[in-house]
């Protein structure tokens, strides 16, 4: 792909560089602003449906204390421009290694380079994929009543991928999903926390029986996974139901991030979340209703739940979630997706999920 005219992002990068140069030549200290990416700088409007970044910014003015980060930021920005102009990509790890060629300005550990990368994203209000920086992480697994239309990397021709034809395997979500198109007759998307639960449903042909698409997140959903679900559900107008462990981590870190985004990625949440997602379970009331075996809440679980009740704009907006978290703290227990095995291996797909799916209106928001 040859660039005919300058991409808007390249223009933004040049503007930043020009500003630095101009300020320097005026014998002033150049400055870069970065929106603060944290839960205390997001707002939540349930109609918009995602965490929106606030207007608090941190300024990095060139001083002796900031000069190293300043240099690293500009070099990474320059690297991004090169990648855009040559239509290439670099993984986060590769970028970290590129910095090893910067002499004294190199990053010692990858978290340092990731932080600078996040700052740059936030500064330009774009996502890192637009900067051509790719995460190492896998996007998640998909199977079910879905045909994905992708392009052949060699010929650029469309190819159709039938997600019912992976046997006991699954389709793996790529890091870039914007170009994907979909064909489906499914009625809903079921998003699952653990690979174990996903495997069981695949094995027993749950997608065919219930005419749905199954997505395995493998923990907190990656940006690509969130974007894929968002795009698929928007394009095909499908409801999204989440099935996770019944603990504060499953509720907040996994489900809440899927639905409204995270504090750290607040600048790009708008596109990387699934506001229409609903929470199927496992809810605290399921524990009672299905007489499930539980584990005691750990201190960190209790702290996470209390923090969410106090600070999380999403929970503050949704009374049912406040009740669920309070119930959980009161019961003092958590439950895993696999706990249904107590009633037989297939209880979860023969009894629990069908019963729940009969009444999606009762799902948590």
């Amino acid at each position, binding site marked *: 792909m040859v660039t005919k005219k300058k991409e808007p992002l390249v223009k933004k990068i040049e503007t930043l560089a020009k500003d630095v140069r101009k300020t320097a030549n005026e014998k002033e200290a*150049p400055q870069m602003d970065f929106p603060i990416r944290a839960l205390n700088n997001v707002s939540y409007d349930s109609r918009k449906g995602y965490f929106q970044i606030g207007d608090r910014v941190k300024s990095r003015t*060139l001083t*002796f204390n900031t*000069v190293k980060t300043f*240099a690293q930021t500009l070099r990474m*920005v320059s690297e991004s421009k090169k990648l855009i102009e040559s239509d290439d990509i670099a993984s986060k790890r590769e970028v970290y290694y590129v910095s090893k060629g910067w002499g*004294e300005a190199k990053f010692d550990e990858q978290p340092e380079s990731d932080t600078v990368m996040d700052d740059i994203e936030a500064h330009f209000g774009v996502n890192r994929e637009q900067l051509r920086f790719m995460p190492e992480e896998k996007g998640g697994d998909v199977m079910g009543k879905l045909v994905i239309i992708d392009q052949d990397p060699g010929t650029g021709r469309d190819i159709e991928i039938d997600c019912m034809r992976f046997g006991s395997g699954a389709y793996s979500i790529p890091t870039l999903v914007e170009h994907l198109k979909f064909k489906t007759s499914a009625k809903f998307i079921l998003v699952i926390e653990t690979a174990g639960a996903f495997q069981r449903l695949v094995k027993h042909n749950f997608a065919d029986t219930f005419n749905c698409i199954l997505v395995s997140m493998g923990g907190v959903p990656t940006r690509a996974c969130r974007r894929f679900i968002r795009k698929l559900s928007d394009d095909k107008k499908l409801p999204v139901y989440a099935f996770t462990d019944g603990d504060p981590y499953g509720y907040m870190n996994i489900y809440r991030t899927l639905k409204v985004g995270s504090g750290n990625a607040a600048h790009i949440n708008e596109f990387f979340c699934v506001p229409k997602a609903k929470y199927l379970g496992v809810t605290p009331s399921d524990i009672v209703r299905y007489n499930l075996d539980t584990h005691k809440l750990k201190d960190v679980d209790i702290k996470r739940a209390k923090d969410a009740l106090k600070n999380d704009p999403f929970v503050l907006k949704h009374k049912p979630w406040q009740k669920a978290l309070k119930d959980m703290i009161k019961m003092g227990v958590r439950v895993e997706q696999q706990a249904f095995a107590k009633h037989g291996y297939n209880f979860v797909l023969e009894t629990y999920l069908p019963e729940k799916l009969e009444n999606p209106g009762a799902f948590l928001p």
Partner: protein
Amino acid sequence: MSEAVIEKQESLFDVSQNGASQEPLSKANGKLKRTTPKNAQKLAAGHREISVSEFFTKNRHLLGFDNPRKALLTTVKEAVDNSLDACEEGSIPPKISVRIEVISETRLKVTIADNGPGIVKSQIPKIFAKLLYGSKFHSLKQSRGQQGIGISAAGMYGQLTTGKPTIITSKPSSRKPAHYYELNIDTKRNNPEIVKEEDVDWDFAKTGTEVTIELEARYQKGKQSVDRYMEATALANPHAEFIYTPPDGEEIHYERETKELPPEAVEIKPHPYGVELGMLLKMIKETKERNLGLFLRREFSRVSEKVAEEISKAAGFEPKSRPSRVANGGVEALYKAINETKIMAPPTTCISPIGEELILKSLTQKIKADFTVSVSRPPSVYRGNPFLVEAGIAWGGELPQDDLVSLYRFANRVPLLYQQSGCSITGAVVGTDWRNYGLSQSRGALPAGPAVVFVHIASVWVPFTSESKEAIADYDEISKEVRLALQECGRKLSRHIKRRKRQADERRKRGYIEKYLPHIGIALQEILDISEKEKEKVIGNLAHVLEESRGGAAAVGADEVLPLEDDELAKEDES
């Protein structure tokens, strides 16, 4: 001389028999030099006679022979003190050799030689083998504190523990051969027993004396070792040269920093404020002066005719009153009158400091540090006794970074190695806030950092906490002077530490410009496709901007004493 001997003996016996406080001993040592033999003999008649060896065995802790380790130190200390005194009295720059040899696991042989004037043949047996015999008694004159009862006590300790005689070689004349003696003490009668005597060749110096004592002792390194004593003694006596051979090691040579001997301390009469009631009573009973006025004027310093009259009248007497009349019931009134009368401070000529410059030289030469400061305070007075405090600090270099500083305490040039925690010098060091001066310090502890702290108190009468003379008593006047001296050193030190820190900061920041600005240049060049020249211009301008921003920090005055800029450091750590 003989009168003093008897007086001293009598006091010692008091101690041994009734176990009373050690106070009478020290006071007698210090101030009662005018006791008549008649009086003393009368007093002594009432006491049971005991042998000196019995006395010694009972009181070895008072004399510094509590344990084998301390016995070695005390022996060396006594001999080195004697040698230094002898050389100074003979106006000879001292050269002293100390050698310790191992005889067996529990037995050591100590040999100390000096280049002093030597001792005439007839005196040798008495000096080395008769307890309580010496050329020097405490007068109100600055002198090295005599530990216990001197070199003969060390000889006796050796004799009691090993059965070996003390060996002395002394050469009073450069043209004649040296006298060689092997001496024992007759422990019953406190008299020397000559085991062997002859004339020998001796070549350590033109004149001088050498003593060898074999004793039960233990050599051990550490803060209370002979090693430390030698190092400290060399520090406080920069006019002396020392050659020290420890049992396990190479000869250590401490060079002298000056050939000039310290000025001889002048003897003074007691100042009225420094005399206690009991002492006053004794003095007035024993005076030969005709009347109270003359007694006050002649036996004390700083008492003029007018002041004598003032005191006399305030006490309800006349200057013409007979001393015997006052002694008979009027002493308390006199004591009170003295302390209520304004009297000029005593003369301070009687103090001989080491001097700022020599302390500096000494620390610089003998401690491997890279910065040294010293302070000599003006003389001051506590309870009528003149004294003077000197302090020094050696910092950095090869000194251990994180340990507590080593504190070297001295009284009249003699190192104090024991009872550090009970000493008011230590109190003053701990009570100084060293964090103001760039060292770290926990509450109630010595500061930590690569430093040696040197404190010397010179006085005609050093107030020790006990007869073992290892710690200085807590007098406000003394503590205050020590603190002032330390603060003065601390201020100089902190200027140095801050300068060093600033230089290091400066280098580091200069490094930032060279390390990181080029990368900003490269990035701008890549993004904007600017020329090499244009790139260099931007880098230059950015460097200028950074230099300017640093201007603010560097403007903090170099002479101000401020706590270290921890905040600034913390900020840098975050980034």
